[in-house]
């Protein structure tokens, strides 16, 4: 047990992370930046999932992206006339990947809607049925088609954020700018921010007041499918860094933490980004110290921040609730109201 937790070495854990070349990896700042970009992008989209009570649809889409990718790659491979080897190494363009993810998101959304609307099965069960069948389908398709490549299991669920600094650098005008994944993720983050700014009103109104949205001529179905499609793009971009399951943490935890601190949506967005930055930096240090998976450590840090806010939040933290109960008597418990626009 004692071998498991290494001693805490300030120089190694905190300082060398930012200054040197640790353990054969490149500059770990890139990892932190990548973690921040992933968490911030996911968190921004996740805010809307939380507001619309669709947090678990995010869970579903992050799983069902797998068959989407599998089918897209296999189709692309067939179009290119390649064999299994080529499928797993040759054809992998972002277009194919995003198309696969989009297809998966649309299929998932439709399947959930159909099961939910056409039968008396509730939405939660519909989500469970949908994502588990699609994930199983993805696994079966992969084991039928994708040859016999020998690669370890880590990557399926956990991503490769650790190797970001060693990735190919994007070169513009002869100067190395940043590793490829960071540049791509920054692009996705930028587009996400732009989309939120452009469609702020539509997203806001349709999330809080569907009736008002309808009277303003906002098509709720279009907004729903648009959000789901963009969610799939974000998920597939984050997938690379943190894997299928930890994406859910990135989607939900920042927004949920922020919602404990404020009731205004713009503030919630800002706090989401702060939370993303903190959890990515803290997570990186945690991973340096414990020598564990960086992606998992970032999610642990995010959860830790949530727990801290849950306990210490000035407006409705556990301590505050306890104090209030002591002052005002037991019947006046925390009147928790929803976030307001």
């Amino acid at each position, binding site marked *: 047990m004692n071998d498991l937790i290494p001693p805490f070495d300030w120089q190694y854990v905190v300082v060398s992370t930012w200054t040197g070349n640790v353990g054969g990896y490149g500059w770990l700042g890139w990892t932190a930046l990548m973690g921040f970009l992933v968490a911030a992008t996911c968190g921004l989209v996740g805010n809307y999932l939380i507001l619309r009570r669709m947090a678990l649809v995010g869970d579903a889409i992050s799983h069902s992206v797998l068959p989407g990718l599998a089918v897209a790659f296999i189709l692309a491979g067939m179009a290119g006339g390649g064999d299994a080897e080529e499928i797993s190494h040759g054809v992998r363009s*972002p277009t194919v990947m995003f198309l696969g993810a989009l297809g998966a998101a649309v299929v998932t959304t439709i399947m959930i809607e159909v099961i939910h609307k056409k039968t008396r*099965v509730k939405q*939660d069960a519909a989500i469970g049925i949908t994502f588990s069948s699609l994930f199983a389908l993805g696994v079966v398709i992969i084991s039928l088609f994708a040859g016999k490549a020998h690669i370890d299991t880590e990557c399926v669920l956990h991503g490769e954020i650790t190797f970001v600094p060693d990735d190919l650098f994007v070169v513009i005008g002869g100067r190395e700018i940043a590793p490829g994944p960071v540049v791509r993720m920054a692009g996705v983050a930028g587009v996400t921010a732009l989309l939120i700014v452009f469609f702020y009103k539509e997203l806001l109104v349709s999330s809080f007041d569907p009736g008002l949205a309808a009277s303003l001529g906002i098509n709720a179905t279009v907004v729903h499918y648009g959000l789901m499609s963009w969610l799939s793009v974000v998920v597939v971009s984050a997938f690379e860094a943190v894997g299928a399951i930890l994406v859910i943490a990135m989607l939900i935890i920042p927004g949920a933490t922020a919602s*404990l601190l404020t009731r205004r949506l713009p503030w919630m967005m800002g706090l989401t980004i702060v939370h993303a930055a903190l959890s990515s930096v803290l997570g990186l240090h945690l991973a340096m110290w414990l020598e564990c998976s960086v992606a*998992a450590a970032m999610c642990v840090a995010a959860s830790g921040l949530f727990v801290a806010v849950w306990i210490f939040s000035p407006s409705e933290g556990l301590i505050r609730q306890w104090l209030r109960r002591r002052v005002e008597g037991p019947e006046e418990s925390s009147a928790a109201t929803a976030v307001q626009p």
Partner: protein
Amino acid sequence: MALRAAPGLVGGVGAMARLRSGVLAFCAYLLVLGCAPSCFADRIGDLTETSVVDQAVRFFTFRDESLRYALLGAILLGVNCGLLGGFMVVRKLSLMGDALSHAVLPGVAIGFLWNMTKDPLAIFVGATIAGLLGALTVSAITHTTKIKEDAALGMVLSGYFAVGYCITSMFGRLETGNKAGIDHFLFGQAAAINRDDIVLMSVVTVVTVLCVSVFYKEFLVTSFDAAFARATGFPTMLFHNGLMLLLAFSVVIALQAVGVVLVSAMLITPAASAYLLTDRMHRLLTLSALFGVATGAIGAFLSFLESGLPTGPLMVLAATLVFGMAFLFGPRHGVLMRWWRQRSRSHRVQRENTLKAVYQALERRNFKGESVTLLELAQRRRETEEEARRQASALIRNGLATRHGTGEQIVLTPEGWLRACEIVRNHRLWELYLTNAAHIAADHVHEDAEKIEHVLGEDVVRQIERRLDFAKTDPHGRPIPSIDDMRRGAGGLFGRDELVGYGRPT
């Protein structure tokens, strides 16, 4: 924009060398795809290269020990998950299973750390504790904050999983760290189910079945009417937590067979299929357990048949197939049956409207002659003759009318006549009822009567007739056919001698 490898940044780690060899950085996705076959090495019929028939024979003779264990495990799992899933689905807690299955990972890791072996009991205890903690965290978050249950489930799911994954990824540095045992919990390994696992599964299944049958009434009342249960001083929280404990047990044993991601399918899908087929809880539980067993067995069989296919996902797909069948062909709630019922209902309404038109056409000429031409029918309904011909053939197909003369005329059969009278009677009685009892203007009652004439039952009509004191004419002054008139045929209406149609008394 050009890409080139950054020099001097790449270490000598094997995994990294592999990554470096990729030209584009989308390797990770391909790793996702490529690594699946090796990590899902949980096929039962892995080692043999035989024909499908041979494999089927091997399957049904149960010669292989590993197959016997896998099948037994799948069946036990089906019973267990089916029973608990029934409660989860009706309580809208379906995704609790999903959350728990991810939340047990830290428990699995710590159970493994206990003595650095894959000791089923230590892992079982650790995982159950972690699962219960997860369930408690969900209810703590939803009770003390404004965060909704879905977000709370998602946070517990991913947060606990991250902690668990952190711990397991630290094993890599330990010399004794045999991570293989842990990895199987992510995807399940039905082929590796051994005697100890079966014993554990049997114990858990027996406990579940006992608990559910002994406390059936209690679980029922807490599931369907928690407020009533609380009001009668019933310890609802105790039963809720008991259910969560059973759920944690079954999630842990299911991990071995189907893995973390797919456990939720074993809990939800059979139960949701059963939910589509029945309204009674005890039948739902029985059916759901049956479906669980069937899908487990089918999954095991399929993966045995075709070596190279993983068992867990096939079990899930079999469950989805069952759900699809229930979704389409369920007798009460199935989509096809509903569509069929709707269709036949609309056809019946159409036929009845045609009958009414025939009756009105006859009435127009004071029931002279018994045949109605298609042209008359078409004019009556303000439709084309083609349309009228189609409706006439629908009547003929259903034995409500026969063709007469050159085929351009139809005559009602006795049943057709009776049905036509009934519809007209329903319509006119209802109009009269609305004007007399509800004081609706006479020119506003037709539309409503058009709709209700098809659904009024015999008893209700008699009741209305009695209320209206056996009135003879409707608000528009037309006669309402009475039961006697119907029996005697239309001739009785006006006291004529020449009787009309097949409705005349024999």
